[in-house]
């Protein structure tokens, strides 16, 4: 719907219908163009409003460009503004017509009213047309010297706009130097700030390939400029203060006295009403004191109160942005926040993204003194209506238990969760109990007693089912009916959709077999047979691996599958401390919100501004050793290289390492009952299978001549059944990851758009599905004039703009050529 328009002529159509509307507007504009009649301005206003409203809803009104320009000779400020807005929007696609506007914009740049001058200058710089750049220089130069500060503020940013259109022109006209002079002399704070914005952006863009830029940047971060800005900080607007504070956080003071001077000067900024200023100040404090451990700690104490206030004030979105930063600090120094745990209690009305962060913080700050209260509170959330949060809170309880505080009571509570008989609570708890048992095997008796009562049929979630199966395998000696439960699970192999569960089932049956062989033998045979017939590569491989292992030597098999295990002391952290430090360096930016350093989520071209600053702050860190204490909490994790990596894949890690050394040609010691079973069920040629097992599925073709340009059959035919069969038979010949363009991601609103696009490239889709952000496609294509097919599995994640491609081919030699063809087709998506 377009904004309602007051012109009587257009009162009825609230939905502008596109083409005819535009022609209509053109006509009316032309009639009014030369009119000087009284009331013409009002009529024009209405028309302009309609044009702008069409522009807003996305109707292309650029055909009316010349008429708009004709109408723009007016003294009405509002009309001027609308016209400038229009021109700024369409000048780029009509560079020739844009020339028409230059004349009146230049004229307006000499208007006696500074507001008009500023407006005209801003619009002139916003045209963004390459071949009009020459007309910009003179008005900009005049603007920088204008006696009105308003015009100067506009001009200062205007220089930056010019720079983005034509960097050389900007340098040739010596604007950066002029900006610098203005920055150091202008009485108006906003002019100074805008000069600083522009200079920072210009020089950081060039810092990589220009020594001059590096020098200029150094001066900007140098003592004299920093002091100049700091002394004026109260004159700046709140936003400009953020900019200055940001600059200061990168400054390297000469000695501690200087640090204290700066902090004393800025302390009152912590009381500023604008949360952005407060956060920026906190950033300065944290970075300045990196070298002084004890002061750094005091800074934490000092900033706690303002941060907690900010969290409580404002909209949920604002408090989320602040909470992310608080979260980072809590994770760095949980000790310092342990007495403030009550601030992180969730309110019923908190949105779930806020609750999630709070739960993580509660988990982090739990220690001897507050564990009881925190766990009690967390248990309250377990029955929460918000299921994801209930899950999170159960996980949080488990994590606290793994931190070794008050384990006894926590295990009791976890077991109580199991009695709540809510599906998701049971599921989450099972996963936790499993992890707990890995760390505290001494609790196995209590847990097993409760877990044994849970029917495997009532659990649907793969993770929970896998956990239960793991426990069945691991503690089969203590659970009476373990072999029979496993057997019934094996019988329902076909209905088990998750490969993870099937993998666990295989392993559990194996473990059980070594403990209670007579009872399990039947289940093991069935499981191996089912595993070998499984469509899933990993399941199939693991089954075959177990089978051969058993064939080779049962004792070796036992050592591999069921080795004596030590209790896990520390679970590996998913994030390295290096990454955490990097995020900390980028305090007060999106890195903190995303919890990953900026280079992971910004495009290369945007990385410029940050790379340099990182170097600086690294210097600051490298020069001393005081900060080690703060980091040590995170660093110790790194040293524990021997830990298990994640909770889902465990003892099987040992498997593959044995692979390489054991030989496969020695089927001497055979478990006879198994051989028969398996031999009958496996039909693949053994060599193929062994290749598979060793991960040699892709035959290396180093000496292949470059394949001839591949052409594809435009209309290949393949029915889904054959596809599925082929997919099962063939091995992956190429597996790649590729990046989608932003346009591509934007166009991928539904799977159909990509399917259509690929069809134009002679690649057909056979199946697709998924919900944003994940889509999955199966494509196929056929080589022109041959019967060989290429099959593709393509998983697109729109959030990361990445596509994972797996290609299987009848004709492996042509696979690479096809892969590049597929990639280029994919990367073109959206641009056409």
């Amino acid at each position, binding site marked *: 719907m377009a904004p309602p328009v007051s012109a009587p002529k257009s009162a009825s159509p609230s939905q502008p219908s596109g083409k005819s509307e535009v022609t209509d507007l053109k006509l009316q504009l032309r009639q009014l163009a030369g009119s000087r009649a*009284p009331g013409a*301005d009002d009529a024009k206003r209405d028309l302009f409003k309609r044009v*702008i409203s069409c522009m*807003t809803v*996305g109707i292309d009104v650029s055909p009316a460009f010349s008429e708009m320009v004709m109408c723009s000779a007016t003294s*009405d*400020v*509002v009309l001027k*503004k609308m016209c400038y807005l229009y021109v700024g*929007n369409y000048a780029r696609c009509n560079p020739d017509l844009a020339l028409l506007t230059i004349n009146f914009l230049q004229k307006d740049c000499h208007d006696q*009213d500074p*507001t008009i001058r500023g407006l005209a200058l801003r619009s002139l710089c916003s045209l*963004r047309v390459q071949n009009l750049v020459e007309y910009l220089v003179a008005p900009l130069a005049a603007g920088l010297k204008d006696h*009105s500060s308003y015009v100067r503020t506009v001009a200062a*940013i205007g220089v930056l706009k010019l720079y*983005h259109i034509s960097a050389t022109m900007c340098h040739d006209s010596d604007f950066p130097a002029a900006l610098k002079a203005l920055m150091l002399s202008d009485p*108006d704070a*906003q002019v100074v700030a805008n000069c600083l914005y522009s200079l920072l*952006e210009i020089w950081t863009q060039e810092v990589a390939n220009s020594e001059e830029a590096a020098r200029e940047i150094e001066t900007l971060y140098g003592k004299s400029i920093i002091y100049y800005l700091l002394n004026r900080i109260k004159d700046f*607007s709140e*936003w400009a203060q*953020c900019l200055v504070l940001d600059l200061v956080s990168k400054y390297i003071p000469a000695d501690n006295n200087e640090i204290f001077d700066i902090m004393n000067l800025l302390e*009152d*900024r912590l*009381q*500023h*009403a604008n*949360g*952005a200023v407060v956060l920026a100040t906190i950033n300065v404090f944290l970075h300045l004191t990196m070298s002084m451990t004890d002061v750094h700690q005091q800074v934490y104490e000092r900033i706690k*109160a303002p941060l907690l*206030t900010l969290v*409580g*004030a404002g*909209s*949920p*979105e604002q408090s*989320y942005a602040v909470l992310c930063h608080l979260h980072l600090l809590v994770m760095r120094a949980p000790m310092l926040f342990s007495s403030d745990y*009550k601030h992180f209690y969730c309110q*019923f*009305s908190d949105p*779930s993204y806020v609750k999630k962060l709070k739960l993580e913080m509660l988990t982090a700050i739990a220690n001897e003194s507050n564990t009881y209260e925190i766990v009690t509170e967390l248990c*309250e959330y377990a*029955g929460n209506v918000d299921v994801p949060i209930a899950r999170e809170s159960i996980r949080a309880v488990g994590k606290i238990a793994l931190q070794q505080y008050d384990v006894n009571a926590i295990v009791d509570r976890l077991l109580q969760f199991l009695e*709540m008989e809510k599906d998701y609570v049971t599921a989450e708890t099972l996963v936790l109990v499993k992890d707990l048992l890995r760390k505290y095997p001494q609790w196995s008796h209590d847990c097993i007693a409760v877990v044994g009562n849970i029917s495997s049929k009532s659990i649907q979630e793969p993770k929970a089912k896998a956990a239960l199966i793991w426990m069945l395998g691991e503690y089969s000696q203590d659970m009476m009916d373990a072999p029979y439960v496993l057997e019934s699970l094996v019988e329902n192999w076909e209905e088990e959709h998750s490969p993870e569960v099937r993998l666990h089932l295989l392993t559990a049956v194996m473990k059980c077999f070594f403990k209670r062989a007579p009872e399990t033998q039947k289940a093991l045979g069935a499981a191996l047979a089912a595993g070998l017939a499984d469509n899933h590569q990993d399941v199939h491989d693991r089954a075959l691996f177990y089978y051969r292992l058993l064939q080779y030597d049962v004792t070796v098999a036992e050592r591999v599958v069921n080795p004596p295990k030590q209790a896990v002391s520390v679970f590996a952290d998913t994030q390295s401390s290096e990454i955490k430090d990097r995020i900390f360096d980028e305090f007060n*930016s*999106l890195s*903190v919100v995303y919890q990953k350093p900026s280079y992971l989520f*910004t495009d290369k071209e*945007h990385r410029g501004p940050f790379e340099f600053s990182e170097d600086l702050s690294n210097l600051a860190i490298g020069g001393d050793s005081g900060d080690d204490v703060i980091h040590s909490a995170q660093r110790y994790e790194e040293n524990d290289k021997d830990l298990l990596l994640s909770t889902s894949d465990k003892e099987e890690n040992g498997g593959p390492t044995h692979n390489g050394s054991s030989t496969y040609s020695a089927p001497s010691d055979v478990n006879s009952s198994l051989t028969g079973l398996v031999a009958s069920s496996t039909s693949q040629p053994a060599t193929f299978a062994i290749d598979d097992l060793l991960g040699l599925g892709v035959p290396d073709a180093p000496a292949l001549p470059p394949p001839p340009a591949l052409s594809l059959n435009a209309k290949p035919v393949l029915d889904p059944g054959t596809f599925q069969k082929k997919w099962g038979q063939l091995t992956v010949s190429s597996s790649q990851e590729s990046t989608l363009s*932003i*346009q591509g*991601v*934007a*166009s991928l*609103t539904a799977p159909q758009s990509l399917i259509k696009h690929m069809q134009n490239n002679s690649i057909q889709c056979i199946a697709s599905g998924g919900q*944003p*952000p994940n889509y999955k496609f199966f494509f196929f294509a056929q080589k022109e004039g041959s019967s060989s097919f290429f099959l593709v599995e393509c998983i697109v994640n*729109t*959030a*990361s703009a990445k596509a994972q491609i797996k290609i299987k081919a009848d004709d492996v030699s042509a696979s690479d050529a096809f892969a590049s063809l597929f990639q280029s087709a994919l990367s073109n998506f959206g641009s056409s």
Partner: protein
Amino acid sequence: MPVAASAIYFLNLRGDVLINRLYRDDVGGNMVDAFRTHIMQTKEMGTCPVRQIGGCSFLYMRISNVYIVIVVSSNANAASSFKFVVEAVNLFKSYFGGNFDEDAIRNNFVLIYELLDEIMDFGYPQNLSPEILKLYITQEGIRSPFSSKASEKPVPNATLQVTGAVGWRREGLHYKKNEVFLDIVESVNLLMSSKGSVLRCDVTGKILMKCFLSGMPDLKLGLNDKIGLEKESQIKARPTRSGKTIELDDVTFHQCVNLTRFNSEKTVSFVPPDGEFELMKYRITEGVNLPFRVLPTIKELGRTRLEVNVNVKSSYGAKMFALGVVVKVPVPKQTAKTSFQVTTGKAKYNASIDCLVWKIRKFPGQTEATMNAEVELISTMGEKKAVTRPPIQMEFQVPMFTASGLRVRFLKVWEKSGYNTVEWVRYITKAGSYEIRC
């Protein structure tokens, strides 16, 4: 790096674009489509207000029935972006006169475009002060030709004021009657366990000021906070008068307050903006006087009946009273029939929010009230009993009462012409999130 926003979009709940303003070329025009399809139309809408699609980050917030989306392509500053949006909305509100919703945007879209041009240039925030912007962007979208001629002449002070040092106050103001209104508004946040112990409790307060003062007055505000009083007694070498002092956990001030003087002398002194503004905000966690104590008992009688008993006690002075007291007691979804007995007020069952709602228009201090309710449930098969219920929520307003105990001790006004001023002070305590688990 401050905001450097590439674009701002205003969308309605269906995802139609109401306003779009592209500040930079580094994001495509179809970013809004990406937002619509990958955020708005998915379940993830409510999961996080900052999302990344492709190389761009979307920072969005919902205000009434409008989504405001900031698109950035670099590592922007999230807190500052959200603050910018909030400030921008406040600015728009002051132009439209209170409301900010889809209709207001549609009716004023030209004005919003004008404002968006002024408050942000090339993605960098500029001046957002309504006081100053109103000098040269006038509220009337439509003016007569006569007045538009008048605007050809430059307003002498306008552009100077745009960037001037005392950005928040114009010179040359004159009022016949010089008045100052102070409103101390506190909201109490409480989380109480079912056993009646306070899990967390704090008060967030703000002091709102409405000034109608001539010239350039200098104001000084005295509160009964501990640090301020101690400092004062040090300076004047006079023992602090006995009486309640309170400890503020954290204070933030409007930009007009001279923070240096606050830090050295602990006095709040300032040159106020004209009209209405928020002078300071504070937070208190110690020594909060809870205005109400709530004791719920909920008994389950068999599978289909609940007995709810809620007792509310007021603990403020007997001469004071609370207004608009509402107690919301959540009940299961399958509630069929309810019957009530209340000592005061009215109670009923509201099916759309699954709550028993008990309203008491006027609640005197030092009294108590009770509600007894019997709830009959539809018997359902297999439905397990709810393990925990949502908490009981309370709403209220208590005039002339501050939960923190904060009092204004003095408000002094100095102006060179030496006129007399009339000062009005009001206190009110409201419920923030006042939750009692049951």
